[in-house]
């Protein structure tokens, strides 16, 4: 019996088919990873609620942003704020290292709240609801919201030495499962109300929370500027078809990158896989502060 040759099968596909297959593979792997992490978090939350005396991890203890919330207190006193544990520091450090090495792929591939927003985009598509277009100027201003939220959280976390944001955090409101196990708890309603607003906004604007309010996203967008790997557009090869802009879930317009895409990129790779022109958009490395370090005569993207 003849075994099929994968190389021969690939070459028999048209370029369009190859591209479609690549989009499907990368998207599939991404959504599978997001789902796996979300399931892990839900299982942890259920264990925390059901086995209250076991010391099982809460969703607060499994959030890398906890490291940011306790950072000032930790640096000034050596202590952690309430509900924050060494696990937060480990996760925070891991996300920081990963972002500096390969860029921010945490938001696009791992964050369970990002997965929820991707699911909402899928729901919007199924319901044939139109997306709300956000004018470019307003979009730029609203993106500063992440840093406002970040500053407020850092201030109150430090001055109260508590996990102040937990009562307002839509991620905790959803994944903490207090709404399921403690529906009588009056403190959950603030978080649930904010969650409802975020869900509504994310149905209108893709990944609205990530774009405009996520404090961890704000931190990672700053770190992303120093990343060794960045998605790079080759202006001489790019045909300005804008297919990458339509694919981008956070609306950063890779087609206008000059040459590195915005540090607001969440590393989903949808723009790279969608690009119909080979080499017009590619992950480039090594990059130093947004400038590609030439190895040899030029980058691969430019050679093509």
């Amino acid at each position, binding site marked *: 019996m003849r075994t099929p040759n994968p190389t021969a099968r690939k070459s028999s596909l048209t370029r369009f088919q190859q591209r479609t297959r690549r989009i499907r593979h*990368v998207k599939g*792997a*991404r959504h599978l*990873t997001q789902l796996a992490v979300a399931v892990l978090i839900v299982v942890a939350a259920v264990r925390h609620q059901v086995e209250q*005396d076991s*010391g*099982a*991890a*809460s969703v607060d*203890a*499994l959030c890398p942003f906890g490291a940011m919330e306790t950072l000032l207190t930790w640096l000034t006193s050596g202590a952690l704020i*309430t*509900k924050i*544990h*060494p*696990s937060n520091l*480990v*996760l925070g*450090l*891991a*996300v920081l*290292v*990963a*972002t500096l*090495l*390969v*860029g921010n*792929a*945490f938001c*696009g*591939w*791992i964050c369970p709240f990002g997965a929820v927003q991707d699911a909402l985009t899928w729901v919007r598509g199924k319901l044939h609801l139109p997306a709300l277009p956000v004018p470019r100027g307003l979009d730029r201003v609203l993106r500063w919201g992440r840093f406002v939220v970040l500053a407020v959280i850092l201030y109150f976390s430090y001055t*109260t*030495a*508590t996990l102040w944001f937990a009562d307002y955090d839509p991620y905790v409101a959803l994944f903490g499962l207090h709404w399921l196990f403690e529906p009588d*708890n*009056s*403190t959950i309603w603030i978080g649930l109300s904010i969650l409802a607003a975020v869900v509504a906004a994310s149905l209108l604007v893709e990944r609205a929370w990530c774009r405009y309010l996520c404090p961890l996203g704000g931190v990672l967008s700053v770190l992303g500027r120093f990343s060794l*790997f960045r998605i790079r557009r080759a202006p001489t090869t790019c045909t300005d078809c804008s297919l990458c802009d339509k694919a981008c879930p956070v609306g950063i317009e890779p087609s206008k990158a000059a040459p590195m895409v915005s540090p607001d990129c969440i*590393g989903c*790779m949808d723009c*790279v*896989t969608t690009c119909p022109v080979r*080499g017009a958009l*590619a*992950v*480039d*490395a*090594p990059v130093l502060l947004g400038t590609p370090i030439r*190895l040899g005569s030029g*980058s*691969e*993207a430019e050679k093509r």
Partner: protein
Amino acid sequence: MKTSVWVAPVASVVVLFGSVGIAELTGVWEVSGRTALVAGEQLGVDDLKGWMTLQQAADGLGMPVAELIELVDPSGNAGITPDTAFRDVEDHVEGFTISAFRERLRR
């Protein structure tokens, strides 16, 4: 130098879960402040944690639980019992925080 689209996501997942694995192996991975309470062991004010019940705290501090409940809820209207954990007191007694309560006990 063009690299594969898989590098960033795979590296991110590996670094994240690898860090958790290394932290677990080295004993750094702690997800809860909960520790086993030894009967009869004296607790300091700083040892009070949100997960502790008022009975556990009273036993550790060496004071009657009724006295501790009165300190926590002077009005007596919040329905606090010896089995109530400090973190649940925060939900029932307005303005109560464990850190502020530690300060009060210290004074």
